[in-house]
């Protein structure tokens, strides 16, 4: 057994710093590169791409990235684990095989985890007695069944462990928890048992710290952010994991940013509910048990994590079509910028009303005044306001009404208050609103499957 392994985070979302995975495999030693590509909205986008072209539906950055890093990973024995397979992990693996051939790699084993996509099995699931009731409203999934765009189960670490056990050097999954990507190599390397919940929780916490990329190494840090150095070359976080469950969060030497008690603590509280009950398919981790010790020099020890048994359910996330929305904006300038923007909003709303257009919601925000902090925003002296961006958004079921909104905001340039500009983008177009339906499914109704693709 290895004494320790180094697991490096390469992406916090699809759209994250493209160079980061390359930095992680070149700027210092690592054993695993883990990359989280999937936000909820990503799954529905990928599903739409797959509907148009059955060879797509995965994070298309991956083949290009692999072309760049695969020779380095092969040379140094670095394994890559990612959920960027999206709704088509098999196609993703095939694309990587093709790239590997192109650059002259002779042998490669790719493990693919499938079985999370239950979009075409919802009727079977309902017949088996699970109505995928919405976790927030309690309604049966039957109410939105016809509008479902994607439906995926969140798998945990163990299907990835299985792929590693059969020799995979790269593991591509569909919907897998972000935390499972980091926990899996620890289970595999250290032979951790599934019922050792403290160890499952230790790896899960490390996964939570890594899952948003640089958000634990100085990115979006609300502490003393101005003291951080060289953010242009921010070091993405690395978890040094030990067989007893201790983990040290660090980053490569000579990179920017900071790993400290404060930067790691901020990530620990990110998007959590009850800290005693952080639920994953692998365990229920107790975030209030975590001990953090700042060792200095960009090293923070995370230890003594407690965990409890996993639940009998997987989480399922379904996305479904829920009407349309459009957002338009105009910029008003001094003098009386805010008063002008407010007057323009009033005129726009009156015109929409006169046309008898109905929306589920119309929302107006004044960027530069209250768009991000609402009623908490400080009152401003009108003369001190240089400019205000009026931002109006509408949402509704009727496409034509949303489209007409786009046609009503543009004319404000010539038919409303003065000192207005910033309408270069043309009329705002309606975009489809994708809503989410979170539910639980008994684990026995779904089976993860691991396939091996070889070159």
């Amino acid at each position, binding site marked *: 057994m290895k004494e320790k392994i180094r697991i490096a985070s390469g992406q916090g979302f699809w759209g994250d710093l493209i160079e980061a995975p390359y930095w992680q495999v070149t700027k210092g030693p690592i054993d695993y590169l883990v990359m989280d590509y999937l936000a*909820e*909205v990503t799954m529905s986008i990928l599903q739409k791409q797959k509907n148009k072209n059955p060879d797509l539906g995965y994070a298309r950055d991956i083949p290009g990235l692999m072309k760049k890093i695969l020779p380095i990973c092969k040379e140094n024995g670095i394994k890559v684990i990612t959920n960027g397979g999206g709704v088509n992990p098999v196609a993703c693996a095939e694309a990587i095989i093709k790239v590997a051939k192109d650059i002259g790699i002779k042998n490669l084993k790719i493990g693919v985890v499938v079985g999370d996509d239950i979009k075409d099995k919802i009727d079977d699931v309902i017949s088996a007695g699970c109505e995928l009731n919405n976790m*927030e409203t309690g309604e049966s999934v039957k109410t939105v069944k016809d509008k479902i765009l994607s439906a995926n189960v969140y798998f945990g670490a163990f299907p990835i462990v299985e792929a590693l056990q059969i020799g995979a050097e790269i593991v591509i999954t569909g919907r897998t928890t972000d935390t499972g990507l980091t926990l899996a190599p620890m289970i595999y390397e250290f032979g951790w048992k599934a019922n050792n919940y403290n160890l499952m929780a230790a790896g899960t916490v490390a996964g939570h710290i890594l899952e948003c990329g640089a958000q634990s190494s100085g990115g*979006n*840090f*609300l*502490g003393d952010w101005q003291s951080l150095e060289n953010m242009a070359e921010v070091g993405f976080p690395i978890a040094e994991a030990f067989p007893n469950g201790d983990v040290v969060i660090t980053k490569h030497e000579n990179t920017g940013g900071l790993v400290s*008690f*404060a930067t790691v*603590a*901020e*990530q*620990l*509280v*990110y*998007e*959590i*509910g*009850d*800290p*005693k009950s952080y639920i994953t398919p692998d365990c229920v981790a107790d*975030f*209030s*048990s*975590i*001990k*953090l010790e700042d060792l200095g020099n960009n090293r923070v020890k995370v230890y003594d994590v407690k965990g409890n048994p996993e639940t009998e359910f997987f989480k399922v996330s379904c996305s479904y079509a*829920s009407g349309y*929305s459009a*957002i338009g904006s105009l910029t008003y300038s001094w003098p009386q910028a805010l008063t002008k923007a407010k007057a323009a909003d009033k005129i726009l709303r009156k015109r929409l009303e006169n046309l008898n257009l109905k929306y589920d*919601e119309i*929302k107006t*925000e004044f*960027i530069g005044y209250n*768009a*991000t*902090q*609402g*009623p*908490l925003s400080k009152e401003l002296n009108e003369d001190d306001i240089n400019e205000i961006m009026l*931002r109006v*958004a*509408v*949402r509704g079921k009727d496409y034509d009404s949303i489209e007409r909104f786009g046609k009503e905001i543009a004319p404000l340039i010539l038919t409303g208050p003065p000192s207005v500009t910033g309408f270069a983008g043309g009329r705002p177009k309606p975009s489809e*609103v*994708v*809503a*989410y339906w*979170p539910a639980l499914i008994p684990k026995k109704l779904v089976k993860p499957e691991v396939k091996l693709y070889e070159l």
Partner: protein
Amino acid sequence: MKIKLRDIAHARSGDKGDAGNVGVIAYDDKGFEIIRKHLSKERVKKHFEGICFGEVERYEMPNIRAINSLLHNTLGGGGTVSLKHDAQGKILASAMLRMEIEI
């Protein structure tokens, strides 16, 4: 004496469906005693009047000197449905730090 929350703590926020979570982390033990005492459900709900339209849940994390508040019915329907500029509640943390506390 009035102190600003931002002088004794930092924070991070994010979304959980239509709820936003705000984790406030005190810089030291003394600061944690202050936020433990003053960041009650009621105080947080009142602070976010006109922003949070649901219940506030409150959790303590003494291990990292933090109080986590979960603000229900806050993000205008959540992530992809919300029309808000800050649909994911990223700014709730900064908004929380505007709070002033009488000690």
